[in-house]
């Protein structure tokens, strides 16, 4: 696992918003541009790396636009930065443009919705270690839950561009069709091949969709869809790799499937983070120690957020 070496410039940088597009009921895509030092730092952003955004002084939306379940939470003044990973990076004319897919869940993400072209936001990053591609892999299976799609879209792009020997396929899950964080229409190709999600399709990656309520694609958890697909394809083994990002329960299930079929698996974990830069110890992830029943806490921000699935001790 390539460690994010010190002495790199990781900000704080000011990024300028180029767009902040609502792509679903509570989903947005924020596009930001960095110049000079920030552009240099983010140019080499790896899929799965993240950044810490200071949203404390970003205004709230007008009260009529605050969903009822967030009215009370919106009263809280923000102190800490918030971690977000990226769904895309583009280097153009000495600028670096990045995209963040985000969901509105509390005071910071609520404030984020008011950012508009020309505004700027203070960012520390890139942070942590991204996904990595071990030698000899032929097939990458991207399993996403909800907002987890972001870093896996970025990964799909990188796999297509830099790893020609690897074929990728995506499994995208959400509670309902409306909560799939994709913009394009869902075009069903065939029951087997699933959907052509424009976001993955542009990298030549087919996708299967699952929704808990069956409103689109497979009816049930994306992990069931994934597991059934693996069963049908009769696939297992060492030339495959699973990459997953989503809610922790889903990741636990993915890890289980991976272990059963003996497939390498990398998971992007989330923790409440105060600093994001390895100094506060708030983001502990319990990890197994090789060949022992003991566990240690690794830091999600510095040692992760992407971990080998075999390491992780899931709590529930």
């Amino acid at each position, binding site marked *: 696992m390539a460690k994010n070496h010190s002495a790199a410039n990781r900000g*704080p940088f000011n990024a300028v918003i180029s767009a902040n597009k609502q792509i679903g009921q509570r989903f947005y895509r924020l596009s930001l541009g960095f110049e000079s030092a920030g552009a240099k730092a983010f140019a080499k952003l790896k899929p799965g790396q993240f950044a810490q955004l200071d949203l404390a002084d970003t205004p709230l939306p007008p009260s009529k636009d605050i969903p009822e379940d967030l009215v009370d939470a919106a009263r809280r003044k923000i*102190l800490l930065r918030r971690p977000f990973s990226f769904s895309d990076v583009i280097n153009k004319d000495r600028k670096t443009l990045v995209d963040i897919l985000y969901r509105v869940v509390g005071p910071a993400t609520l404030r984020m919705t008011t950012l508009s072209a020309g505004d700027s936001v203070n960012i520390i990053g890139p942070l942590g270690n991204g996904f990595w591609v071990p030698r000899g892999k032929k097939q990458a299976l991207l399993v996403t839950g909800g907002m987890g799609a972001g870093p896996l879209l970025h990964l799909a792009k990188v796999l297509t561009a830099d790893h020609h020997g690897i074929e990728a396929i995506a499994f995208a899950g959400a509670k309902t069709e409306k909560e799939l964080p994709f913009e394009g229409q869902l075009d069903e190709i065939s029951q087997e091949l699933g959907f052509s999600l424009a976001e993955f399709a542009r990298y030549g990656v087919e996708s299967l969709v699952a929704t808990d309520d069956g409103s689109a694609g497979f009816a049930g958890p994306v992990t069931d869809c994934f597991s059934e697909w693996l069963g049908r394809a009769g696939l297992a083994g060492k030339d495959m790799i699973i990459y997953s990002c989503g809610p922790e329960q889903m990741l636990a299930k993915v890890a289980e499937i991976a272990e059963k079929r003996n497939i390498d698996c990398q998971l992007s974990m989330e923790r*409440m*983070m105060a*600093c994001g830069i390895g*100094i506060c110890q708030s983001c502990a992830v319990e990890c197994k120690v090789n060949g022992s029943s003991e566990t240690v*806490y690794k830091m999600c921000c510095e040692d992760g957020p992407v971990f080998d699935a075999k390491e992780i001790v899931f709590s529930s």
Partner: protein
Amino acid sequence: MEEAVDISVDFAGIRLANPVFTASGTCGYADELADFTDVNALGGFITKSITLKPKKGNATPRIVETDSGMLNAIGWANIGLDKFIEEKLPIIEKMSAAVFVNVAGESIDEYAAVAEHLAGEAAIAGFELNISCPNVAKGGITFGTDAVQVTEITSAVKKAAGEKILMVKLSPNVTDISVIARAAVEAGADALSLVNTFTAMVIDIETGKPVLANKTGGLSGPAIKPIAVYLVNKVYNEVAKNRGIPILGSGGIRTASDAVEFIIAGATAVAVGTANFIEPGCAAKIVEGIKKYCVRKKITNIKELTGSLGIG
């Protein structure tokens, strides 16, 4: 003009280039903030709490945000004394700030053992005794709220610490902080550090459970600043001033104005904690801001400012 301002301070017998520290648990063991700021711009540096053996710390969530504050319940997670000596001391040797090792433990012996092992290290200016951490089952705050125990632990560690400066970090969770401060000073503390965090709790009303795995945590950040300023002023007036004991003031400091408030209240130096997470370069900025304040106020030596509130 700026050259005319002397913001160096005498802190329990050593000279600090300026009165700004980073606080224990918010700046790593040594140079972890170096990517973001010039750690050599600091007057002082305090390591994460070090215990004799490595500690895993508490389960997660370990933090939660509150209005203008945050709760933490890290639980003394640290690499332990041996690894600290092996991996971190060599880096500390190259740092120009005065480095204090924050010492913690579950028993007086453990505290003393850590201090004793480090007492001979030239790179270390002294120790900060953490008898006030609200996030561990044993040790920590139980010591910090009882004057008799404060006397015992301070004397024991003082002996172990040899020539090094012994700073005792006080808990604000007490009826009369001066009683504890006096106990510490009379038992040999060379300096006082206040405040540590306030015991607090956040409940997730969706799950009906505390957000933190440890249930309670310590409140830090701007929310506590006015209480901390009051406590620093109280300890300065009632204990520190007459005995010539320096105070390291902390609690919610984020700007040079905040730092100046603590200094006027009686702090010889200040420690920046939570703010490092938001703006990792802020301690260095505060050093500059204090200088500017002094220039503007025609203060030539920061000593003129310390405790200048003069009330009580």
